């Protein structure tokens, strides 16, 4: 790329990891390991009757360089608002945030220059071709003409759309458009890539493709990726995640760590005589554990569940009860969400279906 670093791009070839001596960076070395760091971030919107609705209430977030960070929460939890604050599109009511080494309040232009963004309801110009859309966007970010063309080609290849470069966007499928938007977000080589529900509305195949590209970015280029989602399995695949509910952070950590924190595996047994089995399991398992009986069979929550299965089976067999099936399930992120909020992540969605019109607004 050195050959393309022209008059106005003296440090284009510098890698992100070494470019942190940037003059505009916050001169606090301790904070620079964080790609994103917020303290007490608050965003309130003035309501119709003089009241203030708080979409985000006092967020403390730390995202490391090069990690894939999931922001998990139900619809309306404040995810999109947080993203708008982090990419300096909206101004926080209170608190501070440093993104890619620049302060969102002090240098919003620098923040926007260093981050890429895929909005939840992203938009491309449907009448123009894939390549034209990218070229216009690259120029908006100040890339020189030749460099813009080059980056358009590179990013199209990266997302596997090189053969569709001359297709008008309206002829592309939903998954292709999403990938094109991903390419657009990468044109200006951002240090941090924000994605707001990148796979909502995609079929499983297209969803897997998007994630494959995100993993490539992380593994090969060390990109910092910040992705909001309400899909548990997507959050599961990230290095770390934060759970947000009602504008507040309720938990933050690695998927394993969060699940380990609530601890116990769920052991389920299907036997020939569940009622009798219940008594035996109660006697075999530690006395303080709750053992339940439902249509699925007998179940209990116990640390290191798989180690208990042979013991429980042996006890049941010795009483002449046949064991049809036994399983030990580690806690899921939904269990984590339930643990911290008292409800399943999927519950509020059914209560308040989001209309397409309401979903396009910035305010949740």
């Amino acid at each position, binding site marked *: 790329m050195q050959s393309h670093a022209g008059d106005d791009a003296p440090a*284009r070839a510098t890698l992100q990891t070494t470019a942190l001596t940037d003059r505009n960076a916050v001169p606090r070395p301790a904070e620079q390991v964080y790609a994103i760091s917020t303290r007490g971030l608050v965003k309130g919107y003035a309501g119709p009757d003089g009241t203030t609705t708080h979409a985000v209430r006092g967020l403390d977030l730390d995202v490391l360089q090069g990690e894939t960070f999931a922001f998990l929460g139900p619809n309306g939890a404040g995810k999109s608002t947080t993203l708008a604050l982090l990419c300096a599109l909206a101004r926080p009511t209170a608190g501070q945030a440093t993104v890619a080494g620049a302060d969102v309040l002090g240098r919003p232009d620098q923040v926007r220059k260093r981050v890429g963004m895929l909005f939840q309801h992203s938009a491309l110009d449907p009448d123009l071709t894939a390549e034209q859309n990218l070229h216009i966007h690259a120029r908006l*970010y100040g890339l020189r003409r030749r460099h813009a063309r080059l980056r358009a080609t590179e990013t199209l290849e990266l997302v596997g759309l090189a053969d569709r470069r001359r297709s008008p966007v309206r002829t592309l499928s939903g998954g292709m458009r999403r990938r094109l938007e991903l390419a657009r977000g990468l044109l200006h080589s951002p*240090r941090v890539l924000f994605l707001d529900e990148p796979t909502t509305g995609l079929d499983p195949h297209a969803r897997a493709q998007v994630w494959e590209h995100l993993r490539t970015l992380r593994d090969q280029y060390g990109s910092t990726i910040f992705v909001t989602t309400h899909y548990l399995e997507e959050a599961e695949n990230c290095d770390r995640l934060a759970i947000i509910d009602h504008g507040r952070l309720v938990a933050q950590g690695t998927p394993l760590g969060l699940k380990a924190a609530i601890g116990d595996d769920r052991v389920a047994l299907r036997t020939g005589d569940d009622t009798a089995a219940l008594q035996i399991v109660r006697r075999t398992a530690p006395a303080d554990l709750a053992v339940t009986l439902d249509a699925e069979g007998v179940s209990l929550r116990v640390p290191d569940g798989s180690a208990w299965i042979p013991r429980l089976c042996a006890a049941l067999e010795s009483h002449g009860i046949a064991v049809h099936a036994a399983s030990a399930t580690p806690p899921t992120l939904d269990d984590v969400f339930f643990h911290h909020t008292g409800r399943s992540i999927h519950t509020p969605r059914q209560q308040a279906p989001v209309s397409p019109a309401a979903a396009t607004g910035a305010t949740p």
Partner: protein
Amino acid sequence: MTAPSLPDPAATRTPDTPGAPGREPGARLRHELRAVHALVYRDLLRLSAQRTHTALMLLQPVLYLFILGSGLADLIPRSSLGTGYQAYLFPGMLMMTVQTPAIMVGIRLITDRQSGYLRELLMAPVHRATLLLGSCAGGTIVSTIQGVVLLGLAGAVGLPYDPLLLALLLGGIALTSFTITALALALAVGLNRPEVFHMLLGVVMTPLLFLSGGFFPIENLPGWAHALAAANPLAYGVDLLRRCIALRVPDQATTAGIEWSAGQPPILLESALLLVVGVTALLWASHRFSRPE
């Protein structure tokens, strides 16, 4: 996790370093200009991608010019206009050609806002005013191009293909395009729904066109209509084009359009007025557009 040896670290490379000593102002301006160019380029690409649409937009003034123009030509005596009706209609139709794409810029600002494209634009590390300037420049250029196509028909209404006349008319078209685009943007910047914009246009555009002096002389209208016409930017545009023709082809000179109490304003003052109105509208629109959320 990082791979410094990779030939293309697509997502890790620093974009143009902003802090390079001594080049910040120049680089900054260059980036803003690139953003303006990007938006103009988008408009030009759209223009070339939608040829049918463009042709249809041009069809209306052409129909007016040749059907309405020749139909009414015999009814309206030369003496009352100073020239044939088709030649009289020509500046008005130039105005109509220019006005449609210029107003489309306002509609697109609203539809871009609705579709989310505007938000993508707002993410770009440039001033918001730059984005508006880019839209205005794009609209002005596209309108001017369409005006030039109609200008090619000058011969058909009896105007000579005189280079200076064409240059004058081109200047007039560009200036008028700019003013209408800026006004459309100023109107659109505060609106969220295209229907409202369409409704406003529907209410406002027809009177503005009728009071522009494009179809018939304003001087025959009652006094209150004179006053309205004197505040109508389209009337100044039409008058400017008409007087450009009169400058080069005196025998095509028509009856006066805009008349103030002190008489006809000088042609340069008319141009300056259009420019000032356009610039003011653009500044006001930029101001509103730049408000932080």
